[in-house]
C-alpha cells in the first residue's frame, strides 16, 4: 500500500502558527475564554476519537463511555486516593480506556451500521446506570469532586493556566498521533471498510482487525479527553456517560467534518463558543440559537466547517 499524506493535511507552517497563537492567547484574553478553549480542545480529543470511526462509516453513539472512564479515573484517584498528580492519572486514564476499548472492541467489531451505534449506546448507558446506582463507590448522581491538581509534583500557583497548557500540549500530541494513524495503512483500511468490506477480505486484509485497532486508538484518545475535562471542570458526574454527551460528540464531529484531524478541534471550539455566546445574549432561547446555527452549517456546509478552509485553499488564484 502506498503511503501518502492525507490530502487535507495542513502545511507545517500553518500548524506551527496556530499552535503559537494558542500558546500566547492567555496573555491577551480573560480567564473564562482560556478555560472555554481548553474545555473545547479536551472535548475535541473525544470528537477526534469519534471521527476515526466515522471514517470507517461506523457511528459510535457511545463514546461518552470512554469520556466517562477517563474522567472517573481522574475523579477516583483525586477523590478516593488523594492523588491529584496529572502525570499519574492521565496515563492511567489512557491505559484503562484502551483496555476497555480492546475488550469491547472485540465484541463491537462484529457489528456494522445502526447495530454498531445501538450496541455502543447500550454499553455507555450501562456504565451510566452503574455510576448512578453504586453510590458508595462512585458518589451516585452527586459525582466526585476533583481536588488537588498537581503537575510533576508541583501545585501550580495558577492551576487554570497550567491546565490550559497541559491541554494544549496533549491535544497537539493527540492530533499528531491521530494524523499518523489515519495516514497509516491501517487508517486507510478504515476508509475502505466504509466502501466495500468484502473486497478488503479478498485483498488479504482483515476489516475486523482494522476496526478493532481503530476502536482501541479511538477509545484511548477519548479517555484522555475525558481525563483532561475532569481536571478542567473539577467535578465528574454520571452524566458524562449519558447518551446526550455521546450525541454531542457525534454532532460536533459532523459539524467540524471528517476531512482532517484538525476538523474535530475546529468543530469543538466553534460549538462551545456558539453555545456560550448564545447563553450570554439570549439566555431564554439559547437552544434555539444553537439549533439554528447547527442547521445552517449542515445545510450550507454538509462537509462540515473544515470544508470552508479546504475550499478556500482549492480556489484558483
Amino acid at each position, binding site marked *: 500500500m502506498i503511503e501518502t499524506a492525507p490530502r487535507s493535511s495542513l502545511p507545517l507552517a500553518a500548524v506551527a502558527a496556530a499552535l503559537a497563537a494558542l500558546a500566547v492567547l492567555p496573555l491577551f484574553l480573560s480567564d473564562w475564554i482560556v478555560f472555554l478553549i481548553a474545555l473545547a480542545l479536551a472535548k475535541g480529543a473525544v470528537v477526534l476519537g469519534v471521527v476515526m470511526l466515522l471514517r470507517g462509516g461506523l457511528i459510535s453513539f457511545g463514546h461518552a463511555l470512554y469520556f466517562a472512564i477517563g474522567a472517573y479515573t481522574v475523579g477516583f484517584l483525586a477523590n478516593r486516593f488523594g492523588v491529584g498528580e496529572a502525570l499519574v492519572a492521565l496515563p492511567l486514564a489512557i491505559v484503562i480506556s484502551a483496555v476497555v476499548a480492546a475488550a469491547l472492541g472485540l465484541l463491537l467489531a462484529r457489528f456494522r451500521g445502526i447495530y454498531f451505534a445501538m450496541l455502543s449506546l447500550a454499553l455507555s*448507558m450501562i456504565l451510566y446506570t452503574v455510576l448512578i446506582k453504586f453510590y458508595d463507590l462512585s458518589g451516585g448522581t452527586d459525582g466526585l469532586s476533583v481536588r488537588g491538581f498537581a503537575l510533576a509534583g508541583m501545585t501550580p500557583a495558577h492551576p487554570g493556566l497550567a491546565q490550559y497548557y497541559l491541554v494544549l500540549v496533549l491535544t497537539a500530541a493527540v492530533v499528531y498521533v491521530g494524523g499518523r494513524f489515519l495516514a497509516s495503512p491501517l487508517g486507510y483500511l478504515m476508509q475502505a471498510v466504509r466502501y466495500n468490506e468484502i473486497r478488503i477480505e479478498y485483498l488479504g486484509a482483515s476489516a475486523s482487525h482494522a476496526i478493532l485497532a481503530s476502536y482501541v486508538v479511538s477509545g484511548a484518545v477519548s479517555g484522555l479527553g475525558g481525563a483532561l475535562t475532569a481536571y478542567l471542570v473539577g467535578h465528574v458526574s454520571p452524566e458524562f456517560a449519558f447518551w446526550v454527551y455521546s450525541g454531542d460528540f457525534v454532532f460536533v464531529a459532523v459539524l467540524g467534518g471528517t476531512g482532517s484531524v484538525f476538523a474535530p478541534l475546529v468543530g469543538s471550539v466553534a460549538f462551545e463558543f456558539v453555545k456560550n455566546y448564545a447563553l450570554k445574549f439570549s439566555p431564554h432561547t439559547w437552544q434555539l440559537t444553537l439549533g439554528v446555527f447547527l442547521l445552517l452549517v449542515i445545510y450550507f456546509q454538509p462537509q462540515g466547517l473544515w470544508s470552508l478552509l479546504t475550499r478556500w485553499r482549492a480556489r484558483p488564484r
Partner: protein
Amino acid sequence: MMSVEPGMGVSVIVQAFAVVGIGGLGSIGGAALGCIVVGIARAAAVQLFPEIELFVIYALMVAVLLWRPQGLFGAIELRKI
C-alpha cells in the same frame, strides 16, 4: 401516564432505540414484541431488583444483539461485492 413537557421526547427516544434494537430493524412485529419485553423487564426489575432498574433495558439489548446481531426479527442483510 406522563405529563407533557418540552423534554419529554428525551426519556422515550433511547428506550425506543432499545426496543427497535431488540425487535429488529424493519420488523413491526419485532417492535411490538420488543416493547412488551422491555416493559415487562423494566417492571419486573423495579419490583424484584430495584438496583438494576435502569440497567436492565440496556443489558437486555446487549444480550439480544450478541445472540442475534440483527435483533430478534430483523432481516439478515446480504452483503454485496
